[in-house]
């Protein structure tokens, strides 16, 4: 299984019926492909849509029905649309059950950096700061390392997205929790030894006596 699928499938296991969920672009988007059949999850797109569906079939796209990257989407039965003030009221106001975002770095206190590499890449924060500050639960979906260097670090060197720590990071190697200000190894991916996770992680990890394998 490729790394992205391992991550997306594991995060999809955290979904349950009736949840309102916001998925960032990149790996997080893939989580929507793994919703168990029969489960109704409301996916929000922060440009003003709840009930985001899959990519439309050829010829069925509408120029005014798009995702947060401006790409055509469909809307599922029960969908609703609204303005940007409502969209971020949902995000900050305690209505959003889960946000899944990409990350550049996460440090051992759970602080996330994902919106800027100074003087190199300046995309802007878009909705990321509101999402991390406001969602009930924050999961970062990212590859464990970038070109061999650790992304789960002792202290973020990039500007952070929020002082609010994320709840989990899910990578192709592991699930790490950041409860109580510590990075704890919760699960390893199938066939991945704990030592491999530790070697690929710069942050100090708390390793419980028993670390189960990720259920896929």
């Amino acid at each position: 299984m490729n790394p992205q699928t391992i991550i997306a499938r594991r995060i999809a296991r955290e979904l349950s019926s009736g949840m309102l969920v916001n998925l960032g672009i990149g790996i997080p988007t893939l989580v929507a492909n793994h919703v168990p059949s029969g489960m109704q999850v409301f996916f929000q797109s922060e440009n003003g849509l709840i009930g985001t569906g899959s990519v439309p079939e050829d010829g069925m796209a509408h120029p005014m029905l798009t995702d947060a990257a401006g790409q055509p989407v469909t809307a599922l039965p029960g969908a609703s649309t609204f303005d940007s003030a409502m969209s971020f009221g949902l995000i900050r106001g305690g209505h959003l059950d889960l946000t899944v975002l990409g990350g550049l770095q996460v440090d051992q206190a759970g602080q996330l950096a994902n919106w800027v590499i100074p003087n190199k890449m300046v995309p802007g924060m878009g909705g990321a700061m509101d999402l991390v500050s406001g969602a009930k639960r924050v999961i970062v979906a990212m590859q464990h390392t970038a070109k061999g260097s650790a992304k789960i670090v002792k202290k973020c060197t990039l500007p952070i997205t929020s002082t609010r720590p994320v709840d989990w990071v899910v990578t192709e190697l592991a699930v790490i929790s950041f409860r109580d200000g510590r990075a704890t190894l919760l699960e390893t991916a199938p066939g991945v030894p704990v030592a491999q996770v530790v070697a690929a992680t710069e942050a100090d990890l708390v390793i419980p006596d028993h670390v189960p394998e990720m259920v896929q």
Partner: protein
Amino acid sequence: MRTIALERSVAMIPDGACLMIGGFMSVGTPERVIDEMVRQNKRDLTVIANDTAMPGKGIGKLVQAKLVRKIIVSHIGLNPETQRQMMTDELEVELVPQGTLVERIRAGGHGLGGILTQTGIGTPVETGKQRIEVNGKTYLLEIALRADFALVQAFIADYLGNLSYALTARNFNPIIAMAADTVIASADNIVPVGVISPDHVVTPAPVVDYVVANA
């Protein structure tokens, strides 16, 4: 509300004006008005909007034509030209978290001095801003934004200027329609009064100054 020809609607915008422009990655952006701004070479603009779209689309056309002096936006990631002009100091860019940006505009249009939000605390966004404690929680004071003109794109306008919007083309449009001295709306469809039922009017006619005649 008055109807106005496209050319005249843009002619009343002076160089150096501060504009709010609707749209999210160009979806819900008044493209005809933008094209006319480029044609009339309106310069030195300040633009407040969610993003600068991509090259060749929406606000991206204004950036490409170097008509913009300053932008206040949440995201420029899909427009390499905006990033290039920012790096070379040709364009001043103020990045604002999206939820904060829309609330600052809403405050400006609703008679409020600003809003309190936890978003941005402890990040570069906090620089130069005041912290305020309310009921044991810490917030940032984010001040209201207003503009000289709002360029709004609606799905339906009636002859009086009542507006309704479609799907994800709504985004910032009804918010900016409240926050500018002069509101110029264009619409995909212009229809008789009564076609939009009162419950479906999102922007009421009295806040709209001009509806741009369709071609």
